[in-house]
């Protein structure tokens, strides 16, 4: 269970997902929305699965959410993360999905809490973490 890599794996944005990554760089959480039926979707993709429209736009959404589930990266499967040590990485249900019924989740490290205190439903807020030149990643902290 070892891997030789010592660099953070980089996202390789697609034509569809580029606005999401650009938004993070500007400290804005941008989520793709169908301009025909209004439904949000994440991760970004070309077609709305609800109405099949291919027209969409990215809208800034609220950064609050709740823990859906989590893991802790006790074993680093990549040398880069060995340096950081174990982190809680949580699946967060964004509040922005709520009114539409859409599942909008962000998978990201949750800072400032012990693993023993983790629970489903815990309230959190997305923060922006510049991790290296040109790359801002999402993270969460307790609300």
């Amino acid at each position, binding site marked *: *269970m*070892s*891997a030789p890599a010592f660099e*953070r*794996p*980089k*996202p*390789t*944005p*697609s034509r569809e*997902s580029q606005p999401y990554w650009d938004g993070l760089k500007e400290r804005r959480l941008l989520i793709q929305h169908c301009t025909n039926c209004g439904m949000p979707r*994440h*991760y970004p993709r070309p077609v709305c699965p609800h109405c099949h429209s291919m027209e969409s736009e990215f809208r800034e959404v609220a950064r609050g959410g709740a823990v*859906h*589930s*989590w*893991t*802790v*990266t*006790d*074993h*680093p*499967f*990549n040398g880069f*993360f060995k340096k*950081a040590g174990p*982190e809680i*990485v*949580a*699946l967060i249900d964004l509040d922005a999905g709520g009114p539409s019924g859409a*599942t*909008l*989740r*962000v*998978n*990201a*490290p949750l800072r400032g809490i012990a*693993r023993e205190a983790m*629970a*489903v439903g815990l309230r959190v807020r997305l923060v922006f973490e510049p991790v290296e030149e040109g*790359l801002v*990643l*999402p*993270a969460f902290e307790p609300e």
Partner: protein
Amino acid sequence: MTHPLRGKAAVTGIGETAYSRGTTKSGLALQMEASLAAIADAGLKPADIDGIVPYFPGGGIAEDFIANLGLPDLKLSAFVPMGGASLVAALQMATIAVSGGVCRHVLISVGRTGYSGARVSTRLQQFPQFALAAEFEAPVGVFAPAQLYAPGARRHMALYGTTPRHFAEIAVTIRRHAILNGNAVMTKELTVEEHHASRMIADPFRLFDCSLESDGGAALVVSATDAARDLRQPVVQILGMAEGHPDSPASIAQRADLLEFGLVRAAPRAYAMAGVGPADMDLAQIYDCFTFTVINQLENLGFCKPGEAGPFVMEGRIGLGGALPLNTHGGLLSQGHVVGLNHAIELVRQLRGQAGRAQVAGAEVGLVTGYGDMGDGALAIMARAA
């Protein structure tokens, strides 16, 4: 009305290499060795094989089988790219081919050097099915299957009170079965205490909740049932089979219900085709990439209600002599990781009455599952022909 595929195909040959950690052979050599063994077990010649559904990506493709086995007239070359569900889903593909008159004898096989070659977290990054995980999840440190599947286990624990003790019961029972098999990587008894003391990999998965990285090959031959009757072995028919795909198949993170695998869709179809249900199974071979994955599949398969599989696996139920012996060969957790083809092989061996010290007395009908690619599922129900 009887489903047109019901009982139309039979597994006529099975073959395995030794399972090990450390080999000098290539994955392709292991795959061919197992393939030749399966063909011989059926009483066939390599030239009788006219269809192949190998594991993909990774391993031999049609060109390799023609070149190595000297196949004179291959009529079908197909892949079912569903990760750990691929090779059980391949049983459906093979059944379609032999019942549709395209082929007579289809070879399903896999060979891998999971221990001696590239490790799993390295391989997955190259699969197209993992593109979303690679873009959105790998950068925050989540890319190995243990990390991708762990939140489902955590959620099950939070919702239903499932505990590490339940996980341990699965690991310990399957280890006991591996020891009986004789061809298994793990050969020492495992205790509940040793499970609980093993190091944490991806909370809540400890080392002994995770399947092995091992080297080995496995293969089986699926034949038209009318051709099977003339061959060497007792006939084991495929009564029902199905594959199923979950919501948000390429991202567990975006799946509304983390605990609803593709098996939820596949299982009712396979039961309806076979004309039997979970209560009729004499044994089951459940894809055990992680202990928790077994718990979730038992619920998805209808052996118990959602949330009840933790208590379900206790008190000897899943061991030999219990009501539902599971993974009587040692599974991916303790025998070897050949993407679950060893589970299908063990089901056939049990139904033939050839399972040696792990034989389930009077085994007549059982099922095998595959699980992979973050939630794809497949199952096949087999029975000894009267």
